[in-house]
């Protein structure tokens, strides 16, 4: 068992680290000063080696379950030739100069399944640089050529003379040496950690209740704030009466903020009791008042009108008109809540010229800017401690920093006189907006007389996630938000005439990316419609896809691997009397990772159904940690299945109807299928795995339900007639 300790993970270390951070604030590059205790060697922003032989890896990405606090250290340890047991992981501070996401330009943040993809070389170089300096220090000390020195599992060795030294013994000397500009990285055949399972660095603390989440932060004198939000998006406070609230034991203050009325108490329960009896009159002049049926009918009208072109190959309309066989289908996808297990929260301590934040921090640069704007300080004066997030699925990377700005407003309203922990209840979290948008799609396809597809047309209607955000200029081109059409505009199938167009209506419901973003809806429409075309052509679903993917070797690779491993084409074992069984497949690329899944379902006589087994094949380039990859596929399948079976946020007269898990059900263990994951061996650069497992399961299940029942389901969540 690995005995890693994580600097920001255990409560005792956290308190030490917290004190260190506060002092360090006045120093530039505070985190280096925070190194703490023993003299240390820090050749770059990512590695610190202590004279106690500890190797601290500074992780620039949030650990929200996807395994970054294991994957990033693996990359450093590989090139450093460290012993896994000597590693510690520490969350990086907010400082985009050193910790930017290399795929996001100058911004620091975690998302788009990019943590390993953007860090693969950077972290390895960090490790290799440190290794080269340790070797140089040993060469100097032993008066031998550097080339005669080897390093293995944390030990520097000169075999000819039998001399050895641990990293800690060389740290002080290495720190005096110049940092080399060039380092040579290992060849893949020399990898000792990459490609093999190393244990997660967060298992122990998360298994013993000592892992530190934002919800667990307690600062001296800290107040807990709950905010009464308007019942409808766009509502504002007109007036409030806090007389009864202030009489509640433990309530300390009640203040208006732009997003509502904040009740501050000595603990959660006091603030909650206080908020329960608060009277607020809302100004709903600008409030959003549509219900889901009205939104859907407006969108349906748009389905009949041409949208902005996202892809045009040939002439799909003409080819459709001339096709021997034509199919059409309309799809409907609801709003979805992220519903991470840790409801949204953050802790803020605001001073005159500094503000310290504790958060499951996913978008440092945007959050620094937005908090600084509220407090009238500079972004670099917003110091952010990145704690574990109890899930996020995209929600904590809010381009408007919604809950962080709310906390900053509360801190401002009380003039920073106490640290504040803002807690959203589960109901606040579910009502709080920033959903996966509601989308409608219209698909049309044409087959020639030989059953070959000759035309494909796809129209998408739904809000732009990026409009009005800092990402708009980069991600919205000529009126097309890339995240609205990803997975559709890049349709891999070889069809001569393709048209994809888009309507992005504006609506007063706040929306945001949700684990796998555009692919959450595009993969379903594309992969069930291609299945429908295969059926209409009288062809096997795998054969039909295979013939259209000749130019897409990696799609083809996972498609065939999943099909073979699942026994595609063999008979399924029959169910019990009255039950129907079926098998379905889907393949999809998202974030440059390729995934195929085969789902087996059983439909009961009452129309209820269960997913029994899922065989998943994934190609994410070099598999840094195959076990973490499998875990992300398993979890992604469960997450996607929750949406397929249940996920639906609905509005009535502008009010969100769901509040908590009884009316927004998540997947439970008895609904989790058996999952087998097969990872494709690859020498390509590694790509992400946090999201790509999610979008494939719903179409695979829908195709399996068709195989079992003959019913084509085009509306999520899936309900059989």
């Amino acid at each position, binding site marked *: 068992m690995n005995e890693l300790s994580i600097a920001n993970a255990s409560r005792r270390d956290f308190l030490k680290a917290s004190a260190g951070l506060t002092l360090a604030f006045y120093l530039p590059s505070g985190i280096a000063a925070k190194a703490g205790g023993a003299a240390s060697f820090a050749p770059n922003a990512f590695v610190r080696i202590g004279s106690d032989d500890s190797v601290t890896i500074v992780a620039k990405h949030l650990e929200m379950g996807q395994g970054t606090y294991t994957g990033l250290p693996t990359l450093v340890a590989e090139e450093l030739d460290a012993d896994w047991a000597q590693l510690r992981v520490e969350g990086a501070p907010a400082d985009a100069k050193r910790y930017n996401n290399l795929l996001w330009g100058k911004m620091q943040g975690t998302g788009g399944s990019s943590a390993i993809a953007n860090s693969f070389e950077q972290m390895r170089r960090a490790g290799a640089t440190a290794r080269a300096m340790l070797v140089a220090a040993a060469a100097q000390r032993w008066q031998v050529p550097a080339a005669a020195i080897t390093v293995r599992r944390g030990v520097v060795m000169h075999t000819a003379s039998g001399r050895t030294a641990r990293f800690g013994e060389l740290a002080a000397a290495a720190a005096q040496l110049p940092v080399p500009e060039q380092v040579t990285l290992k060849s893949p055949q020399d990898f000792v950690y990459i490609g093999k399972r190393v244990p997660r660095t967060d*298992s122990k603390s998360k298994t013993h209740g000592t892992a530190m989440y934002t919800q667990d932060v307690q600062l001296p004198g800290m107040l807990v704030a709950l905010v009464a939000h308007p019942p409808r998006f766009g509502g504002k406070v007109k007036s409030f009466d806090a007389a009864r609230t202030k009489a509640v034991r433990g309530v300390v203050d009640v203040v208006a903020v732009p997003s509502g009325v904040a009740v501050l108490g000595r603990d959660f329960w006091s603030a909650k009791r206080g908020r329960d009896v608060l009277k607020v009159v809302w100004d709903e002049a600008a409030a959003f008042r549509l219900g889901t049926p009205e939104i859907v009918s407006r969108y349906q009208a748009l389905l009949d009108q041409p949208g902005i072109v996202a892809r045009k190959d040939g002439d799909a309309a003409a080819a459709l008109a001339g096709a021997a066989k034509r199919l059409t289908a309309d799809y409907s996808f609801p709003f979805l809540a992220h519903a991470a297990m840790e409801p949204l929260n953050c802790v803020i301590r605001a001073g005159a010229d500094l503000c310290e934040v504790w958060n499951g921090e996913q978008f440092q640069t945007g959050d620094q800017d937005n908090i600084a704007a509220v407090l009238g300080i500079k972004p670099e004066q917003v110091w952010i401690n990145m704690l574990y997030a109890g*899930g996020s699925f995209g929600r904590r990377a809010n381009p408007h920093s919604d809950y962080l700005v709310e906390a900053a407003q509360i801190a401002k309203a009380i003039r920073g006189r106490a640290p504040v922990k803002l807690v959203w209840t589960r109901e606040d979290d579910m009502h709080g907006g920033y959903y996966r948008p509601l989308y409608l799609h219209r698909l049309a396809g044409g087959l020639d007389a030989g059953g070959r597809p000759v035309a494909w047309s796809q129209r998408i209607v739904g809000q732009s996630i990026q409009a009005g955000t800092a990402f708009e200029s980069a991600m919205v081109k000529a009126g097309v938000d890339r995240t609205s059409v990803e997975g559709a505009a890049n349709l891999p199938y070889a069809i001569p005439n393709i048209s994809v167009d888009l309507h992005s209506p504006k609506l007063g419901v706040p929306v945001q990316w949700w684990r796998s973003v555009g692919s959450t809806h595009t993969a379903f429409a594309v992969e069930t419609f291609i299945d429908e075309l295969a059926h209409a052509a009288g062809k096997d679903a795998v054969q039909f896809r295979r013939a259209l993917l000749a130019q897409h070797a990696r799609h083809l690779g996972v498609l065939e691997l999943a099909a073979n491993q699942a026994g595609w084409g063999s008979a399924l074992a029959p169910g019990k009397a009255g039950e129907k069984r079926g098998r379905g497949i889907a393949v999809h690329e998202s974030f440059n990772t390729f995934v195929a899944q085969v789902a087996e379902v059983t439909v009961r006589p009452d129309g209820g159904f269960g997913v029994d087994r899922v065989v998943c094949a994934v190609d994410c380039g070099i598999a840094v940690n195959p076990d973490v990859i499998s*875990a992300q596929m398993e979890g992604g399948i469960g997450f996607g299945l929750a949406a397929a079976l249940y996920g639906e946020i609905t509005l009535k007269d502008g009010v969100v109807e769901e509040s908590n898990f009884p009316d927004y059900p998540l997947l439970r263990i008895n609904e*989790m299928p058996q999952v087998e994951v097969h990872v494709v061996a690859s020498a390509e650069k590694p790509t992400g795995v946090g999201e790509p497992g999610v979008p494939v399961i719903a179409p695979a299940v829908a195709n399996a339900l068709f195989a079992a029942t003959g019913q084509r389901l085009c509306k999520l969540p899936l309900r059989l007639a």
Partner: protein
Amino acid sequence: MLTLNVNGVHHRVDVAADMPLLWVLRDRLGLTGTKYGCGVGACGACTVHIEGKPARACRTPASAAAGKRVTTIEGLHSRAAKAVQAAWESLDVVQCGYCQSGQIMTAASLLAANPKPSDADIDAAMAGNLCRCATYHRIRAAIHDAAKRLA
């Protein structure tokens, strides 16, 4: 004033009688391993043991726990619990980890009552504990693994 016996230690706490045990544990006693997930007893993140039986701390008024033996993840030392935690670590069950204290509390109770549970027994016992990361596949495997460790 209430007297609570938590993890074998007696605490005198001055709280409203209706304050849920969850918030007494977290905000007054600093035992933050027990998590808030829903507040309505629907997710299991707040699972503790009261007199050895799993209970939802968010729906248990502090007064109802007074005078009873309360065990949280921090005080979980039974043989079954140690097997569960060892299995959880060896299979790397956790992802975000937020629900896992509750999962482990329930799994430890299951194994204490049923040392060799079937998949169906596991599903029945664990269905009240939500995991948004859907680590269920490994939870099942880890409970079987823990059962082997106990055998």
